[in-house]
């Protein structure tokens, strides 16, 4: 059973194999595998080895700095942090309802981000595995080689990402770490000239996104058995959905379902997320392990991100992506839903949705409106949740009367998938590595499973600690009298 592979019964005397750094992912992670003399796998762990400390060091900063500050958590999905923080702080400035211009500018920025991030992940990072095979020559498993043998695929990938980045530049002011969103709204609109220029390319972008879905659909059809079985596991799911049940990446209520699709909760107000989701700490990773409170730590873990969203929503509100969603769900009676590689498929469906959504928005004159910011009654706390490219992203802030942040809690997308990724790599280890002589190609299987989730380990390192050794002197009443920590 994969759950057993979390901790070896007797680690002493086992061989240790390490994959470090996990490559073609964003951020720092490593995998350790413990094997006995017969190469049987006893333990597999994906460790998050770094931390940053944003929650702590933003304390005392004025709240309006936060949307531009926290995106420095992650340069791959800075827009997600920019917007989640803005949404939380909308409540602080009393902006219950944004102006149509502000809301649509933010939505456009977000879809640009989904498009660029999904394109980046699929074409620049993951496609070499899928196109060349998991155990292809390591020197060739990269986008440069994709460009050499499938120049058309690589070119479209690069240009899709470019288009998403351009949407971000026009809405946020800058491709990486923009400044367009502020508490209560946005600080720029989109001129007609900008809209016309961006609209000029959108049909091509929609077309290419559709082709990209086709690439994954075809791979699944050709290698159905392998793709369905690779790292497969069943789990709960979590995502935002719109009030009518539609896929909505910018706003909604929380929906959770179990592996069989039964509703666990629906349209839950995320202002009280902490009543629904708790986090467990394990000594071997700086990334915590979230779970649904009602189900408990053992059974309550879940997956987030493209598969969870596409599976859980009642429909996708754009035509082409909705048709692809149906094909995805129908494939072999839903076999793609529990498959880690199904993430690639769902991710491309979302990319198509983003392209269609961008077109719809660019045609909307509200984007060129002049009413950018609203203010209302001041509040002292706010929670902002958004569906980032990799999954549900939670930002939670409390401020004081002097406008300073006093408290912050962030649960980033990749953290929600912590247990899911660990489970997937254990499944893969059990199936493909157990009892074998470990080759580079076999080890890449582990990374392929991790990559499917498009983990952003950069985001996931935001928690801060210090030297992890402590000594406490506790008196007989249980009170800590003194403590020592080893300093590096």
């Amino acid at each position, binding site marked *: 059973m994969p759950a057993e592979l979390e901790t070896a019964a007797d680690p002493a005397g086992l061989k240790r194999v390490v994959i470090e750094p996990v490559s073609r992912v964003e951020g720092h992670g490593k995998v350790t595998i413990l094997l006995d003399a017969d190469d049987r796998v006893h333990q597999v762990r994906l460790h998050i080895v770094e931390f940053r400390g944003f929650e*702590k060091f933003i304390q005392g900063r004025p709240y309006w700095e936060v949307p531009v500050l926290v995106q420095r958590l992650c340069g791959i999905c800075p827009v997600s942090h920019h917007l989640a923080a803005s949404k939380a702080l909308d409540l602080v400035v009393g902006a219950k309802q944004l102006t149509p211009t502000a809301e649509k500018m933010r939505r456009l920025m977000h879809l640009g981000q989904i498009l660029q991030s999904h394109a980046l992940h699929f074409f620049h990072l993951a496609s070499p595995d899928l196109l060349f095979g998991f155990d292809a020559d390591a020197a060739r498993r990269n986008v440069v080689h994709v460009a050499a043998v499938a120049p058309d695929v690589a070119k479209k990938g690069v240009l899709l990402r470019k288009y998403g980045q351009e949407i971000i530049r026009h809405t946020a002011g800058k491709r990486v770490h923009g400044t367009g969103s502020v508490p209560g709204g946005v600080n720029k609109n989109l001129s007609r000239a900008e809209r016309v220029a961006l609209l000029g390319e959108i049909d091509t972008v929609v077309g290419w996104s559709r082709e990209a879905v086709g690439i994954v659909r075809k791979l699944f059809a050709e290698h159905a058995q392998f793709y369905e079985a690779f790292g497969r596991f069943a789990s709960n799911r979590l995502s935002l959905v719109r009030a009518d049940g539609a896929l909505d990446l910018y706003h909604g209520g929380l929906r959770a379902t179990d592996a069989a699709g039964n509703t666990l909760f629906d349209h839950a107000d995320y202002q009280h997320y902490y009543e629904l989701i708790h986090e467990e700490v394990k000594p071997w990773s700086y990334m915590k392990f979230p779970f649904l409170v009602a189900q408990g730590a053992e059974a309550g873990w879940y997956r987030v991100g493209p598969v969870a969203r596409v599976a859980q929503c009642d429909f996708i509100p754009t035509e082409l992506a909705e048709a692809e969603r149906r094909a995805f769900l129908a494939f072999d009676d839903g076999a793609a839903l529990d498959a880690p590689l199904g993430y690639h498929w769902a991710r491309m469906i979302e990319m198509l949705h983003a392209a269609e959504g961008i077109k719809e928005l660019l045609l909307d004159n509200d984007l060129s409106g002049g009413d950018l910011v609203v203010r209302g009654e001041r509040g002292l706390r706010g929670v902002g949740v958004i569906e980032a490219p990799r999954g549900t992203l939670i930002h939670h802030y409390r401020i004081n009367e002097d406008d300073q942040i006093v408290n912050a809690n962030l649960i980033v997308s990749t953290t929600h998938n912590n247990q899911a990724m660990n489970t997937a790599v254990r499944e893969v280890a059990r199936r493909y590595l157990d009892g074998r002589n470990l080759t580079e190609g076999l080890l890449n299987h582990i990374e392929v499973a991790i990559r499917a989730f498009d983990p952003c380990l950069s985001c996931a390192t935001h928690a801060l600690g210090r030297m992890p050794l402590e000594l406490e002197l506790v008196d007989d009443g249980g009170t800590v009298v003194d403590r020592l920590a080893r300093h590096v």
Partner: protein
Amino acid sequence: MTEPKKLKVATCSLAGCFGCHMSLLDIDEKLFELVKVVEFDRSPITDIKHCGPCDIGIVEGGVCNAENVHVLKEFRKNCRVLVATGACAITGGIPAWRNNVDLWDCFQEVYHYGIGLENGQIPNDPELPLPFDKVHPIGEVVRVDHFLPGCPPPADAIWKFLTDLAAGREPKLEYEMLHYD
């Protein structure tokens, strides 16, 4: 005619956010021109896990733990020219804000007393590299040949810088390309 030898370039992210790497990819289709003169060694976009002998090493992010030092020294040893890329590598950047806070309290807060935490404990596995009390600019640990400023440096600046080096010129950036934001 034999093709001119390509420049070997390695890139890594230490205590950074990957934004500098994103800015490198923001050269967009010029990436295909770049790979005509440049070959990537260790980098988040390849599966090469250790840096071999290289012409240029591009380092994003400051140094926050022992593992960062290890990677950085490996880069310095193997790269003829080492480039501190972005605010974090040059000054420590935003991650270095943690240098102002009491780390003990931080750890307690994040892993013991956070909202909705269960089984609170401080991660202490030997697999986790030792974090430093402070985040350091890479120049405090190794010699740096060039500093490419910005958060992140604009894609045009990265392009100009790399193509200058590839052509054997001393890299020179216009004033407009030198800024933080």
